[in-house]
């Protein structure tokens, strides 16, 4: 029965329709829109490369936004993935209370995307919020986290890092596949804990590190709720990420053509970064199945 091709196709049909209708068609449509000027009221007008020319030639806000987005991803992704790996490593031992810690570290990653948490975050980092209260205990002057352009970025980076739990559980699963005998052998040879981590653990789970970096990058480049709710893109556009700019152009100013062009630039950026990661992966990602090939 499982060889019945028609039956199989029947079951997969919803997905085929879904991909065509809700993914592929909008994808192509947004590409087409990016060459037009369109304000919803009047029909779209073809203007060729004008949107892209303006983007790269005459839009300082775009350049600012692009820089902010890159900075955010460069700070937030390594922090989240690094933290997730470190905590997973510390957690990967037979110990009491492991389930408590696992849940405690995982919880923020599922709540973090909610507006409620963004609201709470905004409050914590406000002038008289919890963070400044704690800093005051150590005799540090209060910091205007949300009003100072040098610090605003950190509030959204920290919110992103705080949600490291989902990457952590993936690392935990990977760490369980590292043979214990390797550590025992290293122990006998007198390797320190640090050496064991960097010489055994890390090399053996590079595929999972790579996977987490790619997935988190895709998330980071689209980050919206944090900048929208906590910093509102400011101050001085210091947290005005591309997702926010796309939203403003598309749904607030109704420059749909320009918004589409912007989102294609974001798409190209994600594709480029993923491409670089895939290209670089052959130099640092080690698949255990390839042992014999000795590249």
């Amino acid at each position, binding site marked *: *029965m499982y*060889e019945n091709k028609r*039956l*199989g*196709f029947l*079951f*997969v049909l*919803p*997905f*085929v329709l*879904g*991909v065509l209708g809700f*993914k592929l068609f909008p*994808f192509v*449509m947004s590409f087409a829109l990016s060459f037009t000027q369109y304000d919803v009221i009047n029909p779209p007008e073809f203007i060729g490369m004008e949107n892209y020319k303006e983007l790269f030639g005459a839009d300082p806000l775009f350049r600012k936004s692009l820089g902010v987005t890159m900075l955010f991803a460069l700070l937030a992704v390594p922090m989240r993935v690094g933290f997730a790996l470190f*905590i997973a490593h510390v*957690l*990967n*031992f037979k*110990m009491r209370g*492991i389930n408590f810690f696992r849940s405690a*570290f995982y*919880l923020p990653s*599922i*709540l973090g*995307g*909610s*507006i*409620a*948490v963004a*609201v*709470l975050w*905004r*409050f*914590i980092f406000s002038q*008289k919020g*919890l963070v400044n*209260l704690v800093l005051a205990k150590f005799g540090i002057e209060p910091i205007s986290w949300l009003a100072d352009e040098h610090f605003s970025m950190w509030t959204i980076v920290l919110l992103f890092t*705080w949600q490291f739990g989902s*990457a952590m559980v*993936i690392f935990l*699963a*990977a760490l*369980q596949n590292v043979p214990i005998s390797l550590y025992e052998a290293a122990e006998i040879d007198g390797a320190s804990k640090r050496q064991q981590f960097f010489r055994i653990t890390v090399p053996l789970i590079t595929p999972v590190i790579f*996977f*987490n970096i*790619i997935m988190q990058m895709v*998330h980071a*480049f689209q980050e919206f709720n944090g900048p929208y*709710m906590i910093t509102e893109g400011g101050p001085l556009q210091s947290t005005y990420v591309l*997702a926010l700019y796309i939203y403003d152009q*598309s*749904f607030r100013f109704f420059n749909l053509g320009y*918004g*589409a062009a912007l989102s294609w630039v*974001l798409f190209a950026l*994600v594709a480029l970064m*993923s491409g670089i990661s895939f290209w670089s992966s052959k130099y640092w*990602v080690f698949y255990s*199945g390839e042992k014999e090939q000795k590249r």
Partner: protein
Amino acid sequence: MSREGQAPGRSQAGPHPLGGSTDVRVGRGASMILPRDRGNPLLRYIALGVVAVVMLYPLLWLIGASFKGNAEIFTEIGVWPSRFDFTAYAKGWKTSTEYTFATYFLNSFLITVPRIIVTVISCVLVAYAFARFEFWGKKFLFSIMVGTMMLPLIILRLPQYLMFKELGWLDTYVPLILPSAFATDTFFVFMLVQFLRGIPRDMEEAAQIDGCNALQLLWHIIVPLLKPAIISVIVFQFIWTMNDFMGPLIYLSTVEKYPVSLALKMSIGATEEVEWASVIAISVVALIPSVGVFFLAQRHFIEGATSSGVKG
């Protein structure tokens, strides 16, 4: 059933398409084989404890703060309020609009529940097809599915908005629910496929000999075996839909139809002088359903997330 029929499915279950070895422990009750603790346990506990406190203190502090009243919020660093004051809750619940949060919670559930139902049905069907059947273009479709997980969704928002506008579905819940009926939440399909691949086919073969057709197989054999993974799908979809902000923000314009996430945003944007005590109180309430579901199902659901190896 021929060996050839099985081979592709099995061989794909080995290395992860994206290079992870994360699908090794997909089966039920993934056993925890951990190394003995060879380091200093005290040091380990201290490190973990410190991180746990730093991570959870803001949440606990905010729960405490919601009882403190406006004055104490800005001065008290401890969690425990000096006295329990529920006025912030009463005030936040009433909101500055003509509706209370009862309306907004109801709206959230009116979006979430149908969406979960159509997600489970469509994703199980599609995952069943991918994990068990042979059909033309299967490999291609599967790689498209994995690919769309990496596609930035923001690029699709604008055209989808125009599509639903054309269809006259703006300011309804249809745009928030309908796409999920077509297995567009590919993360769930992927998770279910990975889970199914870890389940031996013996029972299905036996049932087939007994004369079960494909739908009977699906309902009587596959769905019960998939139960832990389906629970993960339900929990994830519940929390993500409750969290979803951009979707409602784009599609809904009538306050009466707002879900909790939009109503919360309104409460902070309405006035220049934010009344923090009630905003915090209502934010805490808004998190209760998700936290509750998380703790009810956490065992299944962390394993589900682990075995599929996706999402952040």
